[in-house]
């Protein structure tokens, strides 16, 4: 294994981070609106959303691309974190709601006159923050423990995560769990004393999202470079061999699953104040699958892939849902189909292929070069190789 961080990569990450965290907000707040370089408040808000999606996509990739666990319920943890943030934001509305009562509007609507007990601690942001970590963490711990203990793997794991998400989605649609029911939470006003509807707060949230994305990127980069990361990939490639080598694969998987759940929850918490609403639709089963699409399109098994994929798909989505609202699901489905069938490495893999092609064409076409090229091409498409290895019923084994 090479060093975790190569110099060129560090420089690229640094430059991109500086652009995302400093340059873009400055272009929004300091450049006059008439300027070519001006970035509108709307765009800042939109990109803040994309970055949250990118974090979610990275957690999907950490599970799928690095550990071989295709979770179809990652959006559930995202939404749970969002709900915890939503509860805090609902409390911050105070008496400014439609009914001018000191409790959230939907509770008034349901006939409550005082705050239910479990809502009370959400007046405090530190508690809400704790819950954003604990609730997704706890759920992923319990579910992961049960699933990995009984060696539910591969497709069965995917189906079960989907069933859990479906059950949770049905649960949150109900009014009597006092989490806003169908409409969820919306109409947020203040967060940590700042008005969430102002451009400056939104800019702050965007910077927080970009910063969190950077931390997650570096953290995952470090994590996958450690020995744990190696075991993780070994589990992906052949879980049985890992087991026979004396590793408790279930514990490794559980750890990764909980980390992914917590990070997704925090991303959801950052996402909610930016979009201004959280409802059970966020945890619908197809939402989780969409996050998987981002990873597949971007290129799984790489850390930059999910970021590219999430941003790329969502930019197209923002455009297509306005330009061709009727055809967007067909575009998304078709894109997915093409990527799965013809582009297992995603955009990153495609880029790798292109680089190789360029290298080929500059060299002389002699026999040794071709052999070399093939040897070189191998590491360029590890994902494709890994993909065929994952979950394959290899009769020789």
């Amino acid at each position: 294994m090479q060093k975790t961080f190569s110099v060129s990569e560090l420089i690229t990450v640094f430059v991109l981070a500086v652009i995302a965290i400093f340059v873009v907000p400055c272009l929004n707040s300091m450049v006059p609106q008439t300027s070519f370089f001006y970035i509108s408040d709307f765009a800042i808000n939109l990109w803040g959303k994309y970055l949250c999606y990118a974090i979610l996509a990275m957690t999907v990739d950490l599970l799928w691309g690095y550990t071989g666990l295709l979770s179809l319920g990652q959006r559930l943890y995202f939404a749970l974190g969002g709900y915890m943030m939503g509860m805090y934001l609902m409390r911050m509305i105070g008496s400014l709601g439609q009914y001018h009562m000191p409790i959230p509007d939907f509770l008034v609507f349901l006939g409550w006159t005082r705050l239910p007990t479990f809502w009370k601690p959400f007046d405090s942001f530190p508690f809400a923050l704790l819950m954003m970590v604990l609730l997704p963490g706890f759920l992923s711990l319990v579910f992961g423990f049960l699933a990995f203990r009984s060696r539910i793997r591969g497709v069965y794991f995917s189906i079960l995560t989907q069933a859990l998400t479906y059950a949770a989605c049905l649960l949150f649609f109900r009014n009597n769990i006092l989490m806003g029911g169908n409409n969820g939470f919306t109409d947020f006003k203040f967060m940590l004393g700042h008005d969430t509807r102002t451009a400056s707060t939104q800019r702050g949230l965007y910077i927080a999202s970009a910063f969190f994305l950077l931390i997650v990127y570096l953290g995952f980069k470090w994590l996958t470079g450690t020995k744990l990361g190696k075991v993780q990939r070994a589990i992906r490639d052949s879980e049985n061999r890992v087991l026979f080598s004396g590793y408790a694969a279930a514990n490794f998987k559980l750890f990764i699953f909980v980390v992914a759940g917590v990070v997704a929850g925090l991303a959801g918490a950052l996402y909610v104040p930016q979009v201004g609403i959280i409802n059970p639709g966020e945890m619908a089963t197809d939402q989780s699958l969409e996050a998987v699409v981002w990873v597949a399109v971007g290129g799984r098994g790489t850390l930059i892939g999910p970021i590219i994929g999430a941003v790329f798909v969502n930019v197209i989505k923002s455009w297509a849902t306005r330009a061709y609202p009727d055809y967007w699901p067909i575009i998304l489905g078709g894109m997915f189909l093409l990527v799965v069938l013809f582009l297992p490495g995603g955009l990153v893999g495609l880029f790798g292929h292109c680089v190789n092609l360029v290298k080929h064409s500059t060299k002389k076409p002699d026999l040794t070069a071709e052999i070399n090229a093939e040897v070189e091409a191998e590491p360029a498409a590890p994902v494709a190789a890994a993909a065929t290895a994952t979950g394959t019923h290899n009769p020789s084994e």
Partner: protein
Amino acid sequence: MTKSDPFRAFRSLRSLSSFFLVLLLALPAFAEDTAATGQLLCKAIVSEGDEQLKLVAALADTNSDLVRKVLVAWPNDGVYLIDPGNGAKLPVMLEDAQDADGKQKAVRIDTGDYLKDASGKPEAFFANDLDSVDCDLRLKKAIKNTLDLMTLNDPDPETRRSAVMKLGMSQNPAYVPILQARIPKEANHMVQDALNDAIAIIQLKNPDPTIQIPAIQKLGARTLIASRDVLTDVVNDKTSTPDEVKAAQQSLSLIDGHIGRVDFFGTLFRGLSLGSILLVVALGLAITFGLMGVINMAHGELIAVGAYTCYVVENVFHSGLWLSPFGLSFHIPGLNLGGWQFQTYFIFAIPAAFIMAALVGILLEVSVIRFLYRRPLESLLATWGVSLILQQSFHLVFGAANVQVDSPSWLSGNFTVSDVILGYNRLFVIGFAIVIVFLTWLLLTKTPLGLLIRAVMQNRNMAACMGVRTERVNMLTFAFGSGLAGLAGAFLSQIGNVGPNLGQNYIVDCFMTVVVGGVGNLFGTVYSALGIGTVDEILQQVFGSPVVGKITVLVCIILFLQWRPSGLFATKGRGLES
């Protein structure tokens, strides 16, 4: 308000006109009725006071359609008195058809002929110009009683039975002799029982304990659910003696026990039918997922293909269908069938749904799944892409709104066995599921194709070495699994609306059913579908909410898989990966 008033007027006008339509249809029957009945009616109409009430009550014995029609029309101001010129008052009814002036011809009640003028031509009148026969509250009540008693003579036993029970529930002692008189005349056992029950219910009001207590006990022994309220009244009645209260309580406990059993069997039956729906829906998946190992997320959409095929077939049998997909617009002509010919559409829709879904399945297999047999996780993702595309295509072709498929008449309705209501459509799905499972079993075990399918599923490479064309077998197996999904869709179209997202509601349940049953084992799917269906129905009863029931079932399934990770019937193998 200004808007609603004319609307209401229109509605009452409509009900009035439909009422006259009934009269019009009945007119030919006039001639058949004897003139004597007509005379009796006329006498009742023109007389007054208690005399009139008596005459109206006497009409109950006539058992004539004419009497029924006139008595229905009377309280609705549909019977008129006309002075034909000689000072006598002649009761008439007006024909529904109006001439150019809006006048209606009058029909004499006594003879059934048109009222004619001097020249022998039928006379026509404006309804507003005529005096309708008055009908006070007492008379209305008497007419209603007479009509109720007349329904006791209705040719339909079910109508007779409900009429008897209605009389019983009124607890009017005056009916006892009438009902008792009916018992020997009644040929139908069901109606005879109802007559006895009704008499017993009326006797509960009897102050004489020697009559009342046996009546109470009889109702308890008959476990008549309808009598629960009246028995409770006896218990709560302060004038009841302790003996009566005791007897009533005993009867009530008997009835409550019966209700408990009825609920139990009703739940069991609904659970079985829900399980059968699950089974029909999941069986196709059990083949594509369980046997072939293909995670087909588009399975739900194949179900929708079947349901929409049913919708199209129904419309072809009816008046045709306009479709406007992708900006185009074309018309599928209809056969304009009616009556029983239209009712047969479902028989044609079933194979059509199977074939359409199988064709879509073949297309899917050839274009996508063929390349992903060795990558199950990716087949999951690719088929999800397909499912998105198909869903949106339904959306574009058939519209976003749900469409309604009318059930053939032989699938609607129900019958009761010992108070347990059995719906025909629920019975049908149970039978349907049995037939499908049987046919699938036959296909897999008794046909050459089934042999090949099993061979390829057990060991693809070995089968290929033996000369089996595995690609073709895969395609046919997938087509068969998809066709089963289409059948499920055809059935689902009969019990609910059909929409683009129809399949999404079932896909998670489908996968759960197959996983719980044990992947690769069709009979495991049968057991798990019936089990999940019954448990779901019971939990729905316990929690009183379908959603909570469903959530609990999903959580139970997750926990169940802790105990048996590979389902009820695990396919035994020596490989670690399997």
